[in-house]
Every structure is written in structure tokens, then in C-alpha cells.
């Protein structure tokens, strides 16, 4: 079944690949971004200013409504029962006691659940959103330890939670494949990601490695991780006639509406998903069973349902990052120029999803090596489907690659930054495409100077402060520029001169509403308070994923297209009495509350005047963004140079990060205040990745053993030093607004920078995350 999914994915990839070759050789001017976005040249607008969040007062006063906070008339509360076995059958379910408990309205199991289709799994179609493609409470079959097997509905949460304990289920357990080593021994196969096999060979890397005068060859491992957004996954769902209304916490509202409609066999317009605020996502707030179970239960009971997962419930039914075992082998000449770059290994997925942790992706464009051998193999386990978590692939892949670069630098006796500079490629080393904009050298230079890198001792274990050993490390961070198809937006301008931009996008804390209001204000020639940015509603235009660090580009391209359509429409409305009469759309720009001739700004008419003369209350246009061909024409990536200082206690082994600097090259920064928070947020999650985070998985039972925020450790205030952040602010000439993604890059490179600093402090190289104190004693 999974092989079929891979085959379908590969076929799509092959079609894209064939088209990609044509796109690669086409002239620049045919591409989206072939001409720089006019906003790049506009240096004195709203873009680039550190505006405080426009939704800030709502959030700090607790007035921003999250998914579990929409009251509904007659609402029932749900509580879930999770399977304690990894694989098997339900032999018997006794719900009598639960149903008789006070306040209980219904107990839903596979026996009485409404019949629906399985979810379309993410990446299987343009709007597919499912974390897996398994049936939801339709059969007596159990497929992972933690799968929901019953939903109790009651008048209050307390009643539902109590009645849940009264559901009696007898299981027949079957042998499950949950042990990573056992699965590897049984055989793995080449992983596939977004239509491409995760395998690439250029030249004979094995021979080049064997022949290289200097080489290192190391193995690294990273554990499972969970997103752990502080907001619990929650949903309030109601059927209003034939329409299903869901208040969700979502980073893909349009995908979710379509996918749930497929499952219930109804039109996608009959499913309305709203998600105005999301309490953290990081890849985890997508379509899992809770939205579907709440919708089914609402149908069964004929009442609106609120389902808030317990923290344990989030671990049981929302997938996280998969474990990886990686090998990096580097061969170089004595000057440090790479002759061979081998990055391979194995990760775990399930047969029910299309997501293999693609840990080689960053390696594809990182360094100019003469030969490459990159390979990800996957095994399929009987577990909850793994999924995307902040910088899937890059977060853990850069830990291995950038630790290895540090090891090579030491083997060569070269400064690790200098080693990276010597291997800086002029074009993409594996695709051969030109870079759209790559200023890694500038990021390293500025970062090294600010961090005081020249104070670092090349020899480990040389700096001591009392009982603490002190060290510095660095690593490269990188994340691709993506822009996914499906972006569309609507712009409406009223006769009063107020603009509304509508797009089914998301605000999970990235500052979307604020930054996009700045962009729209500049694009339309209006003040910030003359623009309303509406988002987080599946009935708005566009299929926009808040993921892959692509939302800003996706919105930017869609609003730019809508602006083009708006200019055309306004010129039509303006007619022959306007100073704009006779101008073609591409001769016209927005400025000072209206339109003007691009090179003759005084030839101008305001929106108010145009609409007033036409006696029109408003004008509204909708347009789709062009296909994202630019990503096949240029090699497009955000870049970073990460610097870390650690202190390791010689008595306890305790590692503490004392200083951190991220020096970024991510195109133009739209809002320095919110961008700083994005960068810091990624880095801090990277500190967790480096030092403490691990989802502990019982390889005998297939059960997550630390499903709580007490036992899964995330960085707390005391773990977080002041994180310094700088950037080049060099616009990318080929992206909307000149910006590239900033949401995920912060977590890339960070773990390696910490590990390399720990090596510099202690002389101990830890290749197995997280680097807990027991590994340093």
C-alpha cells in the first residue's frame, strides 16, 4: 500500500522533473520573480519597520479567541479512550456503565460511529491534509498504541472524563513491528519525499573518499520529537443543517475543509474551518483524528461538540518528528576542499503516511564537493504516523553534516569557518542551478566579528572558569525557499478608501497579520490603518499552507497578482475623465491612496475619487498567484551562520548555553521586531533539540513513555540566554517583496553549533542527541 503511494508520488515527481528541466533553461523573464517585485525598490514604506503586532493587545489581554473558546448553544464535551496495544483487534467493547454515568449523552465506538471514508493523506493531492490515511473509528482493528477507540460525550468535561474510565474494552494483541533495529534488519528502502527519491549520486563518492588525503567518517543519531505547542489541540464542531462548522487550531484551513469534506462525502463548501488564532503550530496543527472524531460525534449526538485533547492525548494522536540514524563521511584535500560528501542513513515512518524525515535536503546545496552520495532509507513501523516538525530534515540533518564539518576542520587544523568558506559553491552543487541570492560569506563575516570568534581557542578544553569549561562552536543553517501552488487572494477597496485583503492564511505567532498588513499597505499606497488583513477562514480565497516557511511568499505572490487585477479593474472604472485615462496597467503603480503613472507620480487619482466618480460603493477583485516555477529555475535558500558559547560543569556534566548569535541571510526582512522573534524562536527550539528534547518510545509496546510537559523537557526561561540576531537584509531579486522564509531556519544548524561548542569546551564529541549531562560525565 505504501509502495503504491511512493509510486504515485514518484510519478508526480517525474512529471515535475521533466517540466523542471524546461523551466531551468527558460529565460529569467519568463519566471515569476523574473522582474524584481517593485516593493523591493521602495525603501521608505511600512515594510522594514519594527511595527508591534497589530493583534498584540488582544493576545496580552486574553481576548484573542482560540479554537476551544468559541461557545456554542447546547455544546457537549468529549473525552477519548486510547488503545493500549500497538496492533490487534478489539474483541469486546462494553459501554454500558459509561452510558449510565451521570451526564453522559453518548459513547461512540467503531460499532455506532457514522460511516466515513479515510482521510486523504498529506502530499497525496493538492489539498490533502491527513496525517495518515487510516480509517477513523470505522473498524475493530487497532493500528498504533494510542489510537482512539472510543469517544465519550457528556454535558460537562468532568462527566466525560469520568465516564471514559468506565469504558471496558478487551483486545487481542498481535505482534507489531515497533523496534527500529529489528525493522532495519528486516530491510529498508529508499525514502521518497515530495515526489523525489531521497537518493543522489554525483561521481564516485566512495572512491573519492578512499582516495582523499584527509577524511572523517562518523555516525550520528537523533531521537523522536514532539512539537509541544502550548495550546492543546482543540476543536469545537457543529453541524448546521448540512454544513459542518469547525473552530480549529489549524495551519491549513483550506486543505482541512476539503479533506474533511472528502471523508464525509460532502462538498468542500459545506465544511467551514475557522482558525483566527493558533497557539503554536510548528507542523503539528494539521488534520489528525480529533477534528474528525468531534465532527462524527456531533453528528451522532445531534449537538455541537468540544474536543480538547489532553496533553497525553496530543502525544497519542498527533505525530511528531521521526528518529534518524545518519552517517556523514567527508573526504578533502589538505587545503580542505571537499572531494567526497557522503550523507546517508535511515529513518522511520509508517505505511500510512508519505513523510520520511528528509535529512539530506540541506546537504544538497550546502558545499561544493567534487562527488556526492546522499541516501535516506526508511523503515515502516506500527506506530502513530510521524510528521513534519519545524525544519523537517534540515533540523536533524544539519546536526550531522555540520558536526562532521567541525570534525573535518579539526582533522585539517583549519578554522571551521574558514573550512566552510573554502567550500562555498558558486552555483548549486547538485542541481547546477544558479542561486537566486546567497550571501553566506557575508553572514559568516558579520557574525564572527560580532560574536568575537577570534577569541576562540582552536584546541579543546583550554578555557576554564572555576568548575566550568567554556567553549565556542559554529555551524551553518539553511532552509529552502518554497512557494506552493494554490495561492489566491481578494482585494476589496471601498469608496471610503479602505482596503480589505482576504486570504485563507494563518497566524500561529509568526506575525502574519502584522507583516502582511505592512506589505499590503505599501502595495496599495495606503496607511496601515486603511488596510484590514483577513485570514484564518476556509471560505476565503487561496490554498495556503502555513508550513515550509512558505506562507509569506505565497501570500505575497497572491496579493501581488490581486493587485495587478485591481489596477486593471480600477483603470476600467476610472474611464476617460481620469488623469489616468489611456494608461496601460503595467504603466500604473499604487501610491498615496490611489493610482499614478509609474514614472510620472503627479499623474494621480485616489481610490476615493475613482470610485466616487463611478458611483461605486466598492471594487473587489480576486486573482491567483502564478505557478511557483521560480523554484525550478533558481536554487533558492535562506542561509544562516550560527555561533554558540557553552559552559559545561566539570563536576556534574551539566551543559549551559551562555551566548548565542544567529547571523541570517534571508532576503529582505519585512518586520524586524517579529522577524527577530521568529529567528530566536527557531534557535531556542534548536537548543531544546541539542540539549534536552526526546520523545521516549517503548520499543516493546510502541507507547510514548513521556507524554507530558513534565517529562518531555523543552527549554525554560533559565535555559535561554539572550539570543543575539543579525541579518544581511539583502533582498532576493526573485521572490515576492525580496523576502525568503524565516520561520524554520533558526532551528537548523543550532544543534550542531551547540555540539561543536561542547566539543571545544570539553574535548568530548557527542554524536547522539540530546546532549544530556550523562554523556558529558
Amino acid at each position: 500500500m505504501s509502495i503504491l503511494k511512493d509510486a504515485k508520488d514518484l510519478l508526480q515527481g517525474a512529471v515535475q522533473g521533466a517540466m523542471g528541466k524546461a523551466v531551468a533553461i527558460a529565460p529569467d523573464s519568463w519566471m515569476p520573480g523574473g522582474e524584481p517585485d517593485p516593493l523591493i525598490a521602495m525603501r521608505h514604506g511600512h515594510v522594514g519597520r519594527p511595527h508591534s503586532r497589530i493583534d498584540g493587545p488582544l493576545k496580552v489581554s486574553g481576548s484573542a479567541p482560540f479554537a476551544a473558546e468559541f461557545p456554542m448553544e447546547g455544546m457537549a464535551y468529549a473525552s477519548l479512550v486510547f488503545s493500549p496495544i500497538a496492533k490487534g483487534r478489539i474483541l469486546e467493547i462494553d459501554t454500558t456503565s459509561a452510558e449510565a454515568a451521570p451526564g453522559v449523552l453518548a459513547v461512540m465506538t467503531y460499532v455506532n460511529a457514522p460511516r466515513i471514508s479515510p482521510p486523504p493523506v498529506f502530499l497525496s493531492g493538492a489539498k490533502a491534509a491527513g496525517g495518515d490515511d487510516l480509517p477513523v473509528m470505522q473498524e475493530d482493528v487497532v493500528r498504533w498504541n494510542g489510537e482512539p477507540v472510543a469517544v465519550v460525550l457528556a454535558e460537562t468535561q468532568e462527566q466525560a472524563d469520568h465516564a471514559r474510565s468506565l469504558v471496558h474494552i478487551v483486545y487481542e494483541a498481535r505482534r507489531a513491528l515497533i523496534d527500529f533495529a529489528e525493522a532495519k534488519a528486516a530491510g529498508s528502502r529508499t525514502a521518497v519525499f515530495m515526489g523525489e527519491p531521497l537518493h543522489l549520486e554525483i561521481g564516485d563518492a566512495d572512491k573519492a573518499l578512499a582516495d582523499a588525503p584527509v577524511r572523517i567518517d562518523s555516525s550520528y543519531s537523533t531521537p523522536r520529537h514532539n512539537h509541544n505547542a502550548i495550546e492543546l489541540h482543540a476543536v469545537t464542531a457543529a453541524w448546521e443543517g448540512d454544513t459542518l462548522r469547525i473552530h480549529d487550531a489549524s495551519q491549513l484551513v483550506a486543505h482541512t475543509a476539503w479533506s474533511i469534506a472528502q471523508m464525509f462525502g460532502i462538498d468542500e463548501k459545506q465544511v467551514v474551518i475557522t482558525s483566527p488564532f493558533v497557539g503554536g503550530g510548528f507542523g503539528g496543527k494539521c488534520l489528525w483524528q480529533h477534528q474528525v472524531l468531534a465532527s462524527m460525534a456531533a453528528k451522532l449526538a445531534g449537538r455541537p461538540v468540544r474536543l480538547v485533547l489532553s496533553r497525553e492525548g496530543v502525544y497519542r494522536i498527533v505525530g511528531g518528528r521521526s528518529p534518524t540514524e545518519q552517517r556523514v563521511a567527508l573526504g578533502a584535500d589538505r587545503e580542505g576542499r571537499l572531494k567526497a560528501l557522503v550523507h546517508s542513513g535511515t529513518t522511520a515512518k509508517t505505511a500510512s503516511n508519505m513523510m520520511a524525515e528528509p535529512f539530506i535536503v540541506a546537504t544538497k546545496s550546502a558545499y561544493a564537493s567534487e562527488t556526492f552520495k546522499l541516501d535516506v532509507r526508511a523503515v515502516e513501523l506500527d506506530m502513530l504516523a510521524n510528521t513534519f516538525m519545524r525544519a523537517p530534515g534540515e533540523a536533524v540533518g544539519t546536526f550531522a553534516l555540520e558536526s562532521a564539518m567541525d570534525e573535518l576542520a579539526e582533522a585539517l587544523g583549519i578554522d571551521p569557518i574558514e573550512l566552510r568558506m573554502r567550500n562555498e559553491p558558486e552555483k548549486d552543487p547538485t542541481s547546477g542551478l544558479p542561486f537566486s541570492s546567497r550571501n553566506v560569506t557575508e553572514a559568516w563575516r558579520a557574525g564572527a566579528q560580532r560574536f568575537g570568534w577570534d577569541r576562540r581557542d582552536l584546541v579543546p578544553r583550554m578555557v576554564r572558569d572555576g568548575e566550568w569549561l567554556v567553549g565556542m562552536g559554529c555551524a551553518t543553517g539553511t532552509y529552502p525557499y518554497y512557494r506552493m501552488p494554490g495561492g489566491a487572494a481578494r482585494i476589496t477597496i471601498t469608496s471610503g478608501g479602505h482596503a480589505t485583503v482576504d486570504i485563507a492564511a494563518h497566524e500561529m505567532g509568526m506575525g502574519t497579520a502584522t507583516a502582511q498588513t505592512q506589505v499590503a499597505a505599501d502595495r496599495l499606497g495606503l496607511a496601515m490603518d486603511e488596510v484590514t488583513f483577513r485570514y484564518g477562514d476556509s471560505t476565503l480565497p487561496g490554498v495556503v499552507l502555513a508550513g515550509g516557511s512558505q506562507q509569506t511568499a505565497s501570500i505575497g505572490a497572491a496579493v501581488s497578482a490581486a493587485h495587478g487585477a485591481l489596477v486593471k479593474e480600477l483603470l476600467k472604472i476610472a474611464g476617460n475623465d481620469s488623469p489616468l485615462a489611456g494608461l496601460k496597467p503595467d504603466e500604473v503603480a499604487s501610491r498615496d491612496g490611489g493610482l499614478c503613472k509609474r514614472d510620472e507620480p503627479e499623474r494621480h487619482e485616489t481610490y476615493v475619487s475613482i470610485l466616487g466618480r463611478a458611483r461605486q460603493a466598492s471594487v473587489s477583485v480576486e486573482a491567483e498567484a502564478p505557478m511557483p516555477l521560480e523554484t525550478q529555475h533558481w536554487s533558492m535558500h535562506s542561509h544562516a551562520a550560527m555561533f554558540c558559547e557553552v559552559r559545561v560543569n566539570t563536576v556534574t556534566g551539566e551543559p549551559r548555553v551562555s551566548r548565542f548569535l544567529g547571523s541570517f541571510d534571508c532576503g529582505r526582512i519585512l518586520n524586524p521586531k517579529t522577524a527577530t522573534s521568529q529567528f530566536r524562536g527557531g534557535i531556542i527550539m534548536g537548543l531544546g533539540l541539542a540539549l534536552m528534547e526526546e520523545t521516549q518510545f517503548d520499543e516493546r509496546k510502541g507507547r510514548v513513555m513521556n507524554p507530558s510537559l513534565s517529562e518531555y523537557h523543552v527549554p525554560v526561561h533559565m535555559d535561554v540566554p539572550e539570543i543575539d540576531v543579525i541579518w544581511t537584509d539583502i533582498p532576493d531579486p526573485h521572490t515576492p517583496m525580496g523576502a525568503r522564509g524565516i520561520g524554520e531556519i533558526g532551528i537548523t544548524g543550532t544543534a550542531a553549533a551547540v555540539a561543536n561548542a561542547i566539543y571545544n569546551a570539553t574535548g568530548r564529541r557527542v554524536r547522539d542527541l540530546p546532549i544530556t549531562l550523562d554523556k558529558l560525565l
Partner: protein
Amino acid sequence: MTITVNGAAVSLPNDPRVSLLDLLREDLHLPGTKKGCNQGACGACTVLVDGERILSCLALAVQFEGRSVTTIEGLGMPGALHPLQAAFVEHDGFQCGYCTPGQICSAIGMAEEIRRGVPSHVTSDLSSETIALSRDELRERMSGNLCRCGAHNGIIDAIAETFAPKTALAEAAE
């Protein structure tokens, strides 16, 4: 049986299992207090009871008869924010905003603990009557409030700006 919430007397629930958090969120429709774990691990549900910070998810509502609870809604609203709320906006002390009400309530309770001279793990001089409002003190004392977006620096900046000058003034007066 009543409890005072943001200055208004309200009835306690009949069901003794109802936590103070669920009373606020579900019965009183004050969802500003957040549920992040419901087991005392994340701090998102922090409220002030008679001026002291507590985790409302670990508190049964019926235990708080006659007590006075202040939630984020009671501190300030858009247009009339508490100085600490305004400082959070200015210093970008949040991203998604979900842990924010708990961080703010916790910080207000914490500042009062420092004012009273309650020491922490990082307080170097336990005999001192005044405790300096250093970043380490703030970080240590705020570590029970998790933030997954990584707004830690902005949170500490906002707290330091709001409370440090007053404490310095108080010290000067003594």
C-alpha cells in the same frame, strides 16, 4: 458559596471536581486563562489569588470560597492595558499568545514575591533583605511558565522594564 473573580462575586460550581481553571474558562466564559497541560507543568493557567500566583488547573474551585481571583481579563483590556501587558506588546514578549496570560499573571505574582524578599534558587545572599531584580532572578522565577514559540528574551525584557525601575526606587527609598 461564592468566589470573587475580577471584583465580581460568582457562585462556586456544584460539582466538586471542577478545577478553578475550568470554572473560569467554561462556566464564567473567561477564556483568557489558558489550558496547556492541565497537570501543573506549563504555567499557562496561572492566575492571581489574593495577589499570589497559582496554577488554576491544579486548584479545585470549591477550595477557593471567599477568595479573590484576578485573571488576565481583570488586569487590563485593549485600550486600557496594564503596564506589563503594554510592555509585552512593545518587547514582542510572545508570538502565538497562548502562554502569554499565564506569563503576565505569573510575573505580577513574582514581582510581589521579590518585593517581599522571598529567595530563589539563584539568590546568592539569603540573608539580604532586598533581592536585586537581575535577569537571572527573573529567568529562574519565570521558569515555571513554558513558552514554546521562544519569546523568552522579550518576556524578560518586558518584566524587567516594568518592575525594575520601581524596585530600584523602593531600594533607594530604604
